[in-house]
């Protein structure tokens, strides 16, 4: 922590604006989690920028007492890129949703991840378009009935973390809006230098209520949530079960917790990360930091190259405009 940074509390991070999400929306829980996490990060409000696109979640920056930029649909990663390149000292957070990041903004999400811009990307996935009143989204499951798909959607959904992995993300994590472990996920995302991709399962009470209930309900949570911890065994169901590699079929299998083949979580293992992201039916949902393997960040590479290319050269404007093959005209002009 920078010792010059003022100590803050969660309250210091709340803006004076009235929060206007539907009562019971998962966004409230995420907002609280972020506001609670910020003081622990040792960052200054003035050096923090929340950038968002369009959608319910994208109202988020207005409620944070930092700098904030509510931009246009799907493009938040591009704004974040300009902000971070212009001032690498800023701590940049991108707030987005499943439609914003994976439909209209899929291209930008891919490129900000492959470039590895140092920022935290929080994707609020509620598998629905909320702000436009309930149409199905690119993460909606096949058969989702919505105003635009009254007979059920027919197209297959994208898996956000697989998309991130395929795009070259070096940090991929999952959390749940109301889960107490969300601040830890956020802290890990912030600690990672580079683009940190965090998918947050967020419940839309109005248009897609309980869509994640099969693993978020208190009654099934233990059985259906696998919280990954680096260097620790992959255990769930009250540490009674674990995951091991089925080396014949090259996939993961569920074994008893005391089975010596239970895998220890190595976040750098990209192959296992892929399997964890797409655990099949009957398995728990992998949560926490699934994949982390740091690489040089985009802005640091740009800054370094700019400095190297400029070194030894003087910013002499007169010399610049006088470059190339020149000739001198000495005589006085005469009338044409």
């Amino acid at each position, binding site marked *: 922590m920078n010792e010059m940074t003022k100590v803050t509390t969660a309250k210091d991070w709340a803006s004076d604006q009235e929060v206007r999400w539907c009562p019971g929306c998962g966004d409230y829980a995420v907002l609280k989690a972020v506001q609670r996490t910020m003081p622990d990060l040792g960052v200054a409000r003035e050096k923090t920028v929340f950038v968002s696109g369009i959608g319910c979640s994208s109202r988020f920056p207005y409620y944070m007492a930092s700098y904030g930029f509510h931009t*246009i649909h799907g493009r938040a990663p*591009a*704004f974040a890129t300009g902000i971070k390149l212009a001032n690498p000292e800023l701590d940049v957070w991108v707030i987005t949703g499943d439609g914003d990041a994976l439909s209209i903004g899929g291209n930008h999400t891919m490129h900000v991840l492959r470039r590895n811009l140092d920022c935290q990307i929080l994707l609020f996935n509620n598998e629905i378009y909320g702000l436009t009143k309930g149409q199905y989204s690119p993460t909606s499951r096949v058969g989702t009935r919505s105003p635009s798909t009254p007979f059920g959607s027919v197209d297959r959904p994208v898996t956000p973390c697989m998309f991130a992995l395929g795009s070259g993300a070096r940090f991929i994590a999952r959390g749940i809006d109301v889960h107490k472990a969300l601040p830890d996920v956020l802290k890990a995302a912030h600690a990672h230098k580079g683009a940190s991709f965090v998918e947050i399962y967020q419940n839309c009470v109005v248009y897609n209520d309980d869509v994640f209930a099969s693993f978020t309900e208190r009654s099934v949570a233990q059985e259906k949530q696998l919280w990954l911890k680096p260097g620790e065994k992959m255990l769930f169901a009250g540490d009674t079960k674990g995951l091991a590699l089925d080396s014949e079929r090259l996939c993961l299998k569920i074994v008893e917790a005391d089975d010596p083949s239970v895998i220890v979580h190595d976040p750098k293992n990209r192959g296992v990360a892929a399997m964890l992201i797409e655990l099949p039916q009957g398995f728990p949902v992998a949560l926490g930091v699934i994949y982390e393997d740091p690489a040089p960040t985009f802005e640091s590479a740009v800054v370094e190259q700019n400095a190297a290319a400029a070194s030894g050269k003087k910013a002499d*404007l007169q010399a610049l405009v006088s470059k190339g093959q*020149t000739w001198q005209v000495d005589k006085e002009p005469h009338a044409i």
Partner: protein
Amino acid sequence: MATATHIITEEEAASHPQAEAVVVRFAGDSGDGMQLTGGQFTLSTALAGNDLATFPDFPAEIRAPQGTTFGVSAFQINFGSTAIETAGDQPDVLIAMNPAALKVNVDQLREGGLIIADEGEFSARNLAKAGYEQNPLEDGSLAKWQLVHFNISQLTLDAVKPFGLGNKEALRCKNMWTLGLALWMFDRDRQPIVDWLNTKFAKAPELAEANIAALNAGHAYGETVEIGGVHRHHVAAAPAEPGLYRTVTGAESLALGLVAGAQLAGLKMFFGGYPITPASALLHHLSRLKEFGITTFQAEDEIAAICSAIGASYAGQLGITSSSGPGIALKTEALGLAIMTELPLVVVNSQRGGPSTGLPTKTEQSDLYQAVYGRNADAPLPVIAARSPADAFECAIEAVRIATRYMTPVMLLTDGYIANAAEPWRVPDMSGYEPFPVSFFDKAPAEGESVMPFARNGDLARPWIKPGTEGLEHRIGGIEKQPGTGNIDYSPGAHQQMTDTRAAKVNKVAESIPDQDVCLGNPGAKLAVVGWGSTFGPIHQAVRRAQGRGQDVAHVHIRHIWPMPKNMGELLKSFDKIIVPEMNTGQLKTVLRDQFLVDARPLNKVSGHPFRIAEIEAAIEEALA
């Protein structure tokens, strides 16, 4: 008076004439290196002190099938001993490297003009590819022109024989042979080209030597061989303001102007771009100038290019993005956000023929509606247009000045012709430019008071507050806001007031721009020819000629398209008649009618080629008849 279509008579030719101006067109296959030949001829011409203007005309295909008409690449240069404003109406000399080049270009050659053709390329196969049934060099179909032809291919092969190049590589030296001949014809110095070849082929000296040998052979051929009809012309140096000169293309001068603008504003520059013809050259030029505090970013698409630039402006740098019409269309939503959040931004549009992909390598000025009116909702922004490659420098500085002073995106219009064309440019003395340093707002409000990111100064501009400034944390976005605080506010009063203020602010720009002048002729003339952008040259020459015939005509050239200078309405109403030549179907005409209720009449051309002086002269005649 410069006469771009000056006809070299036989008598003049015989007496080693002092031609005032000559138009030469080099045409060949896109693989023949015609742009390079033209570029080098331009350089030697500039060094000889002529005024000049060029028109590179090349196909959209990178390498169209060899020998076809759609693969023809041409470079036209007009140079003279008097002021040159256009690339010339009609070539006096056409150098055709193959049948297709002849076919595409010969009709534009003035009657009696000179054709120099490489007969070595006029094989049955190439003739067929160009659509000739018979060899035009032999069938008399070119009788209205002077025709000379010799086997340039073979002469080149002979010249470079000692260097042991393969046949294909040896033939690549053809363009240098041709350039050598052209240099001889117009009494140009070969040394700059020799120097350039030695630098270009520093790593392959045999190629440098072969090319130099071809250049010298072409020159010697002119000197020693009696070529029927080919005469040597001396074009004297043009009078010019004393000073240091260089040639500059529009893309170069734009890049330099943007750098100068950023320096005068005291800002680092962020340039977000995405490759598109003909705008990419700007990205290329700027990406080499890191020592001026420039970050260039090749984004994933046009939208990300502008969004990243807006992000950089938000963070306190000068955000710039550039494209051509179709790319500007993609940037439009983000432009609305820049207008709504009132952040400085320069958007350069190198216009090309359209709509859609249209004519990517041809010029047009048909994005004026897009610039002035082309956004959803009431979204005004200042628009300025460059008239020539050299003028793009001044316009770029002006765009930066307006963007930073008024906290607004500014659209800078140029076009494919300006971007690619070259002209001599008197190197500016940068100490003569008044700096306009930006000051970021950094005074935190008193306890209990709100941050006011949308407070207004006398220009109605809001403060520029950089993230990182303590005590001024605030949020901005695309939602309508409360005046002053910028907090979300959908109320009728807030939207009315903010909409009015955004428009009033842009209109305020008129208070810091010069009054509209009449660049030729007088207010109150019988006829005003009103133009903008790259039509400056032909309009200026046409008006000059009409005045020479005693006609009461004025030329009004508009740089500030939006808002227009304060006196524009009054000035326009002083003329009896107004014609507006444009390379579109009448866009400035509409704006003038809309803004000033004047009877502006259109003169339109959308062929992908600039206006010819004669076309505008004819319109002047008709208007005054």
